[in-house]
């Protein structure tokens, strides 16, 4: 039973003070007790498996395919959005419903509330991301079996892509959470999240220039595009890119900064 995952002892009399452990249990219960948890798992699986099927099937019969694993995991580009939206709503829905007042009354140290949420959403994203990336890999391998362009874990970069794609999903979920902690409103958080992930990238390519060349590799979308590919281009349309590993570190840094600012604001504000 999922609901018993984090519950070992029910009596916490022995502990000196309500802290992170209590908050983690509460947040985990909150997470699975909403329908959105089930829906987002379904949406993530649907997008990654569905797009894997479509894009991989199209490769059948082709002989020369560059980076087939990237095609197999194409759904992760969209899966990121589902995860980010889930991260946003995990907190912003508490503000819109008033639930946050119950939460903060039971845990007045608000940094702990945000920390517990980050661990729950990050942990969920990591486990689900890894399960999805590896299962999608096997789906892709099955579709491509006997074809000229096959994939296997022994190919250079493939294992790295599978592991890091799951991590990417987890970090994007935490980024969504961090944005929600800063702006609170669901609508505003979601539009900021999509702007950063999507619109910003489009705007950047519409405005070419020296500054754009320097900055565009810092965009989350460009970072994850290197993460989801095994043959990493060192540049994208003339602009240099970070390596996947450095990119992930940068993405994690974004998440930490957003959480830090969000946590500071939560502690400073009224509810």
């Amino acid at each position: 039973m999922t609901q018993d995952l984090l519950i070992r002892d029910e009596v916490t009399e022995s502990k000196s003070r309500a802290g992170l452990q209590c908050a983690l249990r509460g947040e985990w219960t909150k997470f699975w007790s909403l329908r959105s948890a089930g829906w987002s798992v379904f949406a993530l699986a649907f997008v990654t498996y569905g797009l894997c099927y479509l894009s991989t099937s199209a490769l059948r019969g082709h002989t020369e395919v560059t980076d087939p694993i990237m095609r197999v995991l194409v759904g992760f580009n969209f899966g990121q959005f589902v995860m980010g939206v889930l991260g946003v709503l995990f907190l912003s829905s508490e503000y819109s419903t008033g639930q946050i007042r119950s939460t903060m009354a039971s845990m007045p140290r608000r940094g702990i509330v945000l920390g517990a949420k980050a661990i729950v959403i990050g942990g969920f994203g990591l486990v689900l991301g890894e399960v999805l990336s590896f299962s999608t890999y096997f789906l892709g391998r099955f579709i491509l079996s006997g074809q000229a362009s096959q994939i296997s874990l022994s190919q250079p970069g493939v294992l790295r892509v599978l592991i890091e794609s799951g991590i990417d999903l987890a970090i994007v979920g935490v980024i969504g959470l961090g944005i929600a902690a800063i702006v609170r409103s669901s609508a505003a958080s979601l539009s900021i999240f999509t702007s950063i992930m999507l619109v910003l990238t489009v705007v950047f390519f519409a405005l070419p220039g020296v500054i754009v060349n320097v900055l565009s590799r810092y965009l989350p979308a460009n970072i994850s595009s290197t993460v989801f590919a095994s043959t990493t281009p060192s540049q994208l349309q003339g602009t240099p890119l970070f390596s996947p590993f450095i990119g992930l570190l940068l993405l994690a840094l974004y998440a930490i900064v957003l959480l830090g600012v969000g946590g500071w604001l939560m502690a400073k504000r009224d509810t």
Partner: protein
Amino acid sequence: MIEVRGLTKRFGDVAAVDGLSFDVAPGKVTGFLGPNGSGKTTTMSMIMGLNRPDSGSVTISGKKYKDLRWPMREVGGLLEARAIHPGRSAYAHLWSLAQYGGVKKSRVEEVIDLVGLTSVAKRRVGKFSLGMGQRLGIAAALLGDPAVVLLDEPVNGLDPEGIRWTRSLCRELAGEGRTVLISSHLMAEMALTADQLVVIGRGVLIAELPVDEFVARSSKRSFKVRASNLEMLIPALEDAGALTLRETSACLTVMNLSAERIGELALEQQNALYELTDLCSLEDAFMELTEGALQYRATA
């Protein structure tokens, strides 16, 4: 024991709470009264550590809210707006709070039984009626078996049975030696429930006194009168100096005249009195007290 000292909270230019000081003692029900917008909810939010005071302090058993080791076990609060995500079941909501507060799982079922929501505990809260939502809020407040209970407008949306239940619950909690603070804008409700009153208006303390004293102080009295011939009775009452107000064709409210005089006048006319009821004039007394402090007043 709650101690509020010089509490001030501004929203922009408006001081919602302005230098408020009062005590809430254990073993009693303290009624927190004031017109709408007088700062009751803001004050209770500050007691619960949800709003930050601009100045002043609140302590619960001598400690600040954020320094409580197990906040839910020491203070339980029902906050005015429903502080519940509608997508969760009542059970899941309470269980998540219990985990946050380090409260046993068995206690969740206990409070669900206590507020009478057992049959709907697995249903999503969004489908709850206003009254069921209030009961769930009260369940959450009692979850940690706290020594201090704050209920903001607990009878809002409750049916008469629910109101009576809440009233006896408050009496019971105070009887067990807990500190109970309930807010309301209805004086009559408070007169039945509370022992002690804290009356505020525009964020300023207007009165802090026992309910009995408040009742005794109320000056204006009025009576509900029904008689066999009201048309005949009205002029006689008015000649005697009374103010009369025809409520319905069969019912009259009489002010500025004692019950004795009303009875005597009816007797003189051979007019049979069907009813002579002392209308609790607490609302009037409350209005008198808070008149200068009304935030929203109809001009008509």
